[in-house]
């Protein structure tokens, strides 16, 4: 799952490969200068497209770290699997 998140971050924040390879679950928004509030909107759409999930508009503000994104994705995909 983290590889998919890396790809989404790379596309939304227009990161080069060297930066992408450094992204881990510990990466937070301050680690990636291009992770602005505007770029974050593109990131959310990339995540939704890649993982086939939908985030509520009021939950996206607190997704400012890879760990937070993974947590949300795991919760949503678990719900989908239960269904």
């Amino acid at each position, binding site marked *: 799952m983290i590889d998919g998140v890396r790809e989404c971050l790379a596309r939304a924040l227009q990161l080069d490969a060297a930066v992408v390879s450094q992204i881990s679950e510990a990466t*937070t*928004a301050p680690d990636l200068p291009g992770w602005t*509030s505007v770029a974050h909107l593109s990131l959310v759409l990339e995540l939704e497209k890649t993982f086939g999930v939908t985030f509520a*508009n009021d939950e*996206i503000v607190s997704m400012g770290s890879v760990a937070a994104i993974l947590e949300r994705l795991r919760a949503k995909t678990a719900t989908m699997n239960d269904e």
Partner: protein
Amino acid sequence: MNEDAIIAVRMPQPNVNDEEVTLVNWCVVDGGQAVEGQPLCEVETSKSVGEVPAPASGVVRQTARVGDIVAVGQIFAYVGPSIEAIDEYISSQEGWSPDDEVQQTREPPGATAGAIELARRYGIDPANVPATGKVRRSDVERFIARRGLTQPAGKPAAAPAPGNRLPPALADRVRDEGELSDHQSAIAEHLARTQARLVVAHAVMDASMEAATRWMNTKRQAGVITGPMPILLHAAAAAICSQPKLASFRLGRRVYRYRSIDIAYAARSSDGRLFTPVIRSVDNRGLDELASECGRLSMAVFRGQLEPADMSGSCLTISALSEHPVRLHVGLQNAYQSAILTAGAVHDELTLVDGKPAAIPTITLTLSYDHGLMDGWEAAAALEAARAAFEAIHD
């Protein structure tokens, strides 16, 4: 106006976010005489009731009824030398009849009038357009973009109005780049009309970004993504509390003031269209709550899902170009507002701190206001209140 000319009267956009209006009253009866510049009808928008002036003097043929929902840009009347001449002209337009036009203004369940009007132009059945709930104009625009549809060739484009004709001397020097999109055109006309009513002046002031940067960094460390907009909203509310005229506007000699400090901010959708979502009761919200609300509304804009209720009734607008290296950014007021607060990008200003030179992150705030409503002293005091609030924020 040429005495024999027949003018198709299209519904103007009274508010940048309104795609359709409700016709609430005709000021000139069907077959009656319109006078250029005098009210032709009254329409209700998401914000208010306003008058639509007649574009020319002449006999009026109504093609919409009171209570109809009319899409912006849709023909709702004709003005010409006589009813007979107008009806003859209408009949000559590819089988069109007044009854057809009235019928088209009816809103069948499942689609807005704006969506129907756009879909009709592209030969699309609105029922085939994917949408969550009622099909809106933005749904049709996405449908068109995804399929790369082009507007089918139909009637030749109407001749441009005299003021819009290209001067012959420029004919060989320029290239015809086609028409603006409906959205762009509506915004341009809306802003031009609004600016024509205002006496615009500007006040400019720098504000230190140190406190704002600390706040944003603290939030980012905590995993909360936010830009400077919540702080700008907080600062704008402080300015309005200091100078309530910022929440007022003029209509002729009458002045109206908004009862609540609801502030709009400019945001772009993923396909580049401009919207102005509104944060309610900004003066009663903390920064964290403002950040959360900005995130929710910005995402809705980005997805093209903003609801009309999210865009109506704001007393002031904020526009920030923090993503670009623009220092001074002057905005244009929206309808039924007298002021807009804008912010450029953060830049360093060299100043003396304890006798030593230091680079201070700074943002330039510009307040564009209606000098017909408030003077420069009042505007400067309001901007100073905004600056003070902007610099005084803390966790």
